[in-house]
């Protein structure tokens, strides 16, 4: 069958199960747009800025586990994708980005809207392609989706010159993939698995650190089995949130710079640390030379380059977490480590980091907690970056995977709104809450238009503190309150929402938080709440930059008094 390049691309996308493309048109992709109506199963969602397309594709991918697809024209369209591609790369999110390129004859001539996007994205993609003939498109699409979604997932960019879209070629979709340089290891080495089991079985104070790899490999059941069978407390990284149910008695929250004090203390005391699909990011480890000083480390990760990169490992196992845990769990002895668990539990009582202090003020933590209570935890939370992100991580109990979506490695402000849109498009039946900072919201709020155009029922909570809050917190703590460049004027967000036709309310009083959230949830479509939260509230605990996990600062005393009939979730053990 002879088809044009654009048709071959669409045929490939269909065969890869693509349903949605987040895109924005322009000259070089016009032939592709001209072809899209022939493929009504490919839903095109028109964003308002290509950064939004990339974040939306990323949000879609994180919420569904499927590959997110974004599309942009050459030149400025392609460069606008860059932030979103970098974010997907650092957080191992499966994405295929398609860009138009100037026609082949113009490449290298500094033609109108020509940029070397494969060169630009070289270090922030898992792989990328410049397609030079239509007969290559089918193979490239097949490879791109395979690379994006297997092994350690990541973004793959396909750059297609304008004239290749209209060139004809014989179409047949390849069955097989020939990539001799790409063979991810899935099975762990049996001898290493035995060694890990021996180490774990002999441990008296083991701890599991679960990362995003657990969610990626869908290993939640296996993780639970390991923890329960051997009675091992579980902490997670920021991106590992939800990989282990946070209402479980063995769950001890997040570790790291803004991790729970008890999680960090447990890391310090552990004799064996089992790291699952996590990459020892410096926000998670704090000063790495003092990370888990007493622990012998087992590290299970699919990417050999992650092993030994930041922390030296006694038992490395390269493989897929799910597959490896499947084998490892068989070798694990049923254990009871009550003393150790009681010990960590005791720390939890002594350091009640998740308690919110009694206050008449509108505390952002209280807003997050109220969303938790209103949704009973049954929601997908997509966050911005900064304080709002940390409170969303700390004050909501995530019980299922893919319920917490956040830009971790890149920490890209402006992720929240487009990623929430992407998550909602991917999971139409879920309640999606976008928890935004007023700074991040102003970076990508143009996507409100996309949300309306797609009638996507995203609920938006702006944690409006009138500051670039997280940076202000650093200025307060480490720069003598020299608030330079952080006080942030913003528009009237209720009026903004109104202008877009989105119902909205402003909440300035604590006593109406719950009713506003209820109102948002009762609304069929999108809804925005502008929460005027306490402007100078800080995120605690906090490990100061350069310090070790043990050197966390807790909220000043008056801040930790118990409150408000907060019900800790019942354990399910």
């Amino acid at each position: 069958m002879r088809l044009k390049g654009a048709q071959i691309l669409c045929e490939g996308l269909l065969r890869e199960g693509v349903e949605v493309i987040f895109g924005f048109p322009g000259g070089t992709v016009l032939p592709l747009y001209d072809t899209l109506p022939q493929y009504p199963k490919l839903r095109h969602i028109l964003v308002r800025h290509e950064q939004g397309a990339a974040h939306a594709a990323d949000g879609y991918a994180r919420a569904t586990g499927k590959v997110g697809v974004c599309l942009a024209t050459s030149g400025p369209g392609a460069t606008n994708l860059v932030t979103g591609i970098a974010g997907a790369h650092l957080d191992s999110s499966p994405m295929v980005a398609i860009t138009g390129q100037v026609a082949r004859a113009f490449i290298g001539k500094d033609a109108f809207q020509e940029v070397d996007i494969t060169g630009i994205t070289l270090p922030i993609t898992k792989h990328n392609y410049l397609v030079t003939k239509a007969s290559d498109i089918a193979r490239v699409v097949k490879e791109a989706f395979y690379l994006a979604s297997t092994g350690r997932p990541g973004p793959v960019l396909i750059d297609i010159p304008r004239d290749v879209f209209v060139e004809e070629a014989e179409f047949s979709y390849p069955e097989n993939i020939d990539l001799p340089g790409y063979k991810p290891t899935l099975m762990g080495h049996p001898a290493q698995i035995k060694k890990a089991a021996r180490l774990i079985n002999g441990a008296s104070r083991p701890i599991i650190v679960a990362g995003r790899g657990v969610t990626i490999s869908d290993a939640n059941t296996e993780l639970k089995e390991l923890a329960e069978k051997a009675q091992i407390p579980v902490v997670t990284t920021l991106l590992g949130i939800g990989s282990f149910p946070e209402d479980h008695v063995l769950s001890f929250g997040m570790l790291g710079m803004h991790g729970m004090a008890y999680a960090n203390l447990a890391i310090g005391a552990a004799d064996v640390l089992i790291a699952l699909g996590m990459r020892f990011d410096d926000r998670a480890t704090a000063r790495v030379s003092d990370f888990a000083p007493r622990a012998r480390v087992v590290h299970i990760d699919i990417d050999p380059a992650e092993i030994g990169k930041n922390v030296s490992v006694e038992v490395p196992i390269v493989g897929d977490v799910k597959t490896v845990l499947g084998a490892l769990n068989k070798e694990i002895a049923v254990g009871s480590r009550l003393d150790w668990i009681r010990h960590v539990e005791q720390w939890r009582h002594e350091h009640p980091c998740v308690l919110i202090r009694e206050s008449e003020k509108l505390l952002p933590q209280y807003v997050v907690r109220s969303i938790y209570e209103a949704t009973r935890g049954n929601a997908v939370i997509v966050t911005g970056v900064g304080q709002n992100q940390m409170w969303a991580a700390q004050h909501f109990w995530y019980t299922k995977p893919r319920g917490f979506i956040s830009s971790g490695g890149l920490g890209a402000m402006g992720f929240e709104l487009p990623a929430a849109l992407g998550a909602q498009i991917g999971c139409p039946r879920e309640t999606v809450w976008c928890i935004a900072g007023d700074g991040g919201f102003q970076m990508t709020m143009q996507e409100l238009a996309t949300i309306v155009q797609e009638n996507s029922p995203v609920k938006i909570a702006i944690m409006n503190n009138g500051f670039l809050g997280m940076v202000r917190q650093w200025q307060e703590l480490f720069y003598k309150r020299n608030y330079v460049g952080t006080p942030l004027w913003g528009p009237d967000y209720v009026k903004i929402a109104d202008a877009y036709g989105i119902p909205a309310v402003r909440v300035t009083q604590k006593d109406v938080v719950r009713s506003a959230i209820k109102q948002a949830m009762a609304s069929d479509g999108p809804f925005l709440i502008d929460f005027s939260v306490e402007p100078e509230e800080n995120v605690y605990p906090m490990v100061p930059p350069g310090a070790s996990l043990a050197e966390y600062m807790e909220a000043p005393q008056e801040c930790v008094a118990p409150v408000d009939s907060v019900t800790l979730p019942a354990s399910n053990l």
Partner: protein
Amino acid sequence: MNSKHVLVALVQDEPGVLNRVASLFRRRGFNIDSIAVGHTETPRTSRVTVVVDSGTGDVEQVRKQFEKLVDVTKVSDLTEESIVARELALIKVKATAFTRSEIMQIVDIFRANIVDVAADSVIVEVTGDEDKVESLYQLLRGFGVKELARTGRLAMTRGGLGPLPVEETEAQRLKKPRP
């Protein structure tokens, strides 16, 4: 321990692959001492020999990142292996009627060749390990070197073990003291 590491990689002949390799070393903060690329016995496969200074970082980490490139099939660190390593250099040396015979003597001692003779210069071709090339170059500098071109190191393991050594186990690779 040798601070120069020899990494040998087999890569697919895809456009831009050299760019990917160079970009990776730059991004991970390594300086490349030399890089040599050429075809192999297998069609569509090239061999890249990179010499890096371990003083600039953790070579094992960069080796793994190198191997992760999709167009790269395998990367081995041959530093500790028994290998044959050679480099070729062309050296254009000023030569007059008076100095030419002296230059030829030195070239003979080094088992190098004179491959071009002009009125006022000769081109010397030398093959050998870097020390040999370097010593010859230093000696010839006395006559005035007009141009120097070096290929960078090529390396191959001795014996019948095939193009690259058998893979070591992950555990061996990671045998490294805790910080």
